[in-house]
């Protein structure tokens, strides 16, 4: 919603301009070369997961960011799409079906479910919509244990992607082949979702989000506008589900429940709902946090939760919002003024957070470690938690960092204000 001016300019010039297509070309090249930079199998696994999360988060942001609809049950559309794709994998017809088109079926199924649910849930946005989405989500998640034919009960259902018709000789046996399939779909669906947000209906979704009454006065039905966004979001969630099915070859109740729906809200909000690329950043950061932190510490969910709450409280625009805040200083050519105050605040702040995290880890270890196991490794050093020294070090780090950051913050506020005010034109 920010680069409106830019797009209208592009439209005025007629057709696709290079500057409009450039980000997509770069993204495509980026996706192409990524596996050559990170060659290990685990890296490719992470990238696959990331790409699926990006599609899912973008589809979620069609609701939350662009349409103002907070959903607590978006996992359902991804889930059912995935379940259908696994079923297709198990049918005989799969042998005459190339694997790369499988996600379309997931998308269509997600769209059909969204059609049904959306017919009554999009009447209102806000709290009503959130409640209905929660209710429907819980309902379908609970149904997964009852309707065993489709959802496979508690163990879920699994399939084998390699039974499909070979696609130009590729049978999708290795992770890297799957990666390119997912990357292709990522690019296509991201582009489609972006284009959707540029269509009149996508624009109206923004209008309805901001002021439904006024949109109605302009002659648009807020309900229909929401409905269209909703089914489009359902479609792309279904595609993400299809890709999930291809990548993991198994779907369970976990793909439908509130936990998954909640974490996509977390991902999207963390990245920022205000910009199209926000959820992409969110998905990348969250997946990295999840994989890296969960290897390092048992408490990763605690940190992510704290990060989320802090984001909602202090940076409601999310990461992309914080990044885009720097647009004005850069445009004014004053961003250099910010570097020094930033270092003065951010370095102690990082130290404070590290100290706090270390302290928390120590406490956790002291409380829950097996008796006799008092040694622990943190920040590449090993020490004893009964030794007071690490406690003191972390406490000093946390408190000192906090104090220094506090001390530097007025300067940052001043510099920020200064960098955002244009110079007086003295001519």
């Amino acid at each position, binding site marked *: 919603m920010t680069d409106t001016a830019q797009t209208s300019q592009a439209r005025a010039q007629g057709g696709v301009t290079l500057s409009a297509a450039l980000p997509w070309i770069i993204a495509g090249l980026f996706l192409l070369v990524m596996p050559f930079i990170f060659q290990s199998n685990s890296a490719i696994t992470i990238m696959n997961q990331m790409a699926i999360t990006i599609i899912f988060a973008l589809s979620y942001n069609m609701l939350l960011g662009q349409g103002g609809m907070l959903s607590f049950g978006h996992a359902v559309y991804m889930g059912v799409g995935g379940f259908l794709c696994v079923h297709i994998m198990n049918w005989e017809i799969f042998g005459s079906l190339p694997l790369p088109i499988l996600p379309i079926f997931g998308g269509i199924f997600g769209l059909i479910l969204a059609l049904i649910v959306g017919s009554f849930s999009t009447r209102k946005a806000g709290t009503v919509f*959130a*409640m209905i989405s929660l209710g429907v989500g819980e309902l379908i998640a609970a149904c997964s244990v009852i309707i065993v034919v489709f959802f496979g009960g508690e163990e879920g259902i699994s399939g084998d992607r390699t039974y499909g018709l070979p696609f130009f000789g590729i049978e999708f046996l290795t992770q890297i082949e799957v990666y390119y399939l997912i990357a292709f779909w990522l690019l296509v669906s991201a582009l489609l979702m972006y284009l959707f947000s540029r269509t009149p209906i996508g624009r109206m979704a923004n209008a309805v989000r901001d002021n439904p009454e006024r949109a109605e006065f302009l002659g648009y039905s807020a309900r229909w506008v929401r409905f269209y966004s909703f089914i489009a979001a359902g479609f792309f969630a279904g595609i993400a589900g299809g890709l999930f099915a291809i990548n993991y070859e198994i779907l369970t109740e976990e793909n439908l429940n509130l936990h998954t729906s909640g974490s996509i809200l977390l991902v999207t909000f963390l990245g920022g709902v205000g910009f199209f690329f926000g959820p992409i950043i969110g998905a990348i950061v969250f997946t990295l946090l999840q994989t890296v932190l969960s290897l390092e510490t048992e408490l990763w969910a605690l940190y992510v939760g704290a990060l989320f709450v802090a984001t909602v409280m202090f940076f409601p625009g999310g990461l992309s919002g914080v990044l885009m805040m720097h647009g004005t200083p850069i445009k004014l050519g004053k961003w250099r003024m910010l570097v020094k105050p930033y270092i003065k605040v951010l370095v102690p702040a990082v130290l404070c957070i590290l100290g706090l995290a270390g302290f928390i880890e120590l406490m956790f270890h002291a409380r829950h470690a097996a008796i006799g196991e008092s040694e622990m490794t943190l920040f590449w050093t090993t020490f004893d938690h009964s030794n007071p020294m690490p406690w003191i070090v972390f406490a000093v780090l946390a408190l000192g960092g906090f104090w220094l950051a506090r001390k530097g913050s007025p300067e940052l506020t001043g510099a920020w204000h200064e960098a955002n005010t244009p110079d007086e034109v003295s001519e």
Partner: protein
Amino acid sequence: MDLILVNLIDGLVTGLLLFMLSAGLTLIFSMMGVLNFAHASFYMLGAYFAYQISTYVGFWMGLLIAPPIVGLVGAAVERYGLRRVHQYGHVPELIFTFGLALLIEELVKFIWGNDQIPYQIPEILEGAAFSISSYDIPAYKVFMIFLSLAIFLGLLYVLTRTRVGMIIQAALSYPRTVEALGHNVPLVFMGVFGVGTALAGVAGVIAGPVLSTFPGMAVVLGSIVFVTIVIGGLGSLGGALVAALIIGWLTTFAKAYNVRMEDILTGLGFNKPDPIWDSAWRDLWTLTSPQIADILPYLLMVLILVFRPYGLFGKRDV
């Protein structure tokens, strides 16, 4: 007949417990327009605090001390968290409370661990209070019923008969006017939030020992509490009571009586497909009421929202 009575009592216990949670939630909602997603987390905090206190000074002191502490935590959350997010609108508020719910669950795991904790009912309430034919009614359930009723009556008294209650009721419908009259509405908000969460804390203290105290307990009850206030009509205390009782009895009876879909379908004149395990309809035929007991509230909620978006007793749109 006896079984019906026993189930009525069981459903009443569940219903009243739900009511204690939903009363606070609906009060908070009607006052601030915030659906507190973390409400059940305060219920969980109540149980954990009470357990921690009870290890030092016993169950009764836990019952006395834990809810006010939960209320204080709630008030602090309102003062330093929600009030800050309020400026961004209702959706970020809802997201904030959602994040808070996640955070509280992780904090509880951090402090008390992932496993269930041994929070027990006090010795004096162990055993049966009385029995209906061969069914024993545990004394603890009777205690729960009386405590919940006492709290309900107390709440009713405060809200309708005292000056504070009058201000709260006025602030519910016309917050700006009340503010113009010189009352400190933000303070009232904080107070209501504190009391609402303290009520959830009480529910946690008394439910913890019977429903088991573990980090997932908030999730188990959380969505049901939402369902309750949506069915009852957002902002309506009476509606919350009726909806809580309906849900309590609905789930209890569905679990107690094994109504089988097979019997219903045969009664309607359908033929059971043979062999059943090969049929696409096998899940429909093997459906039983205990199986679907837990999803009945959600079904009810979706139906209510579709056909009567105001809820049973709600006056305003959600």
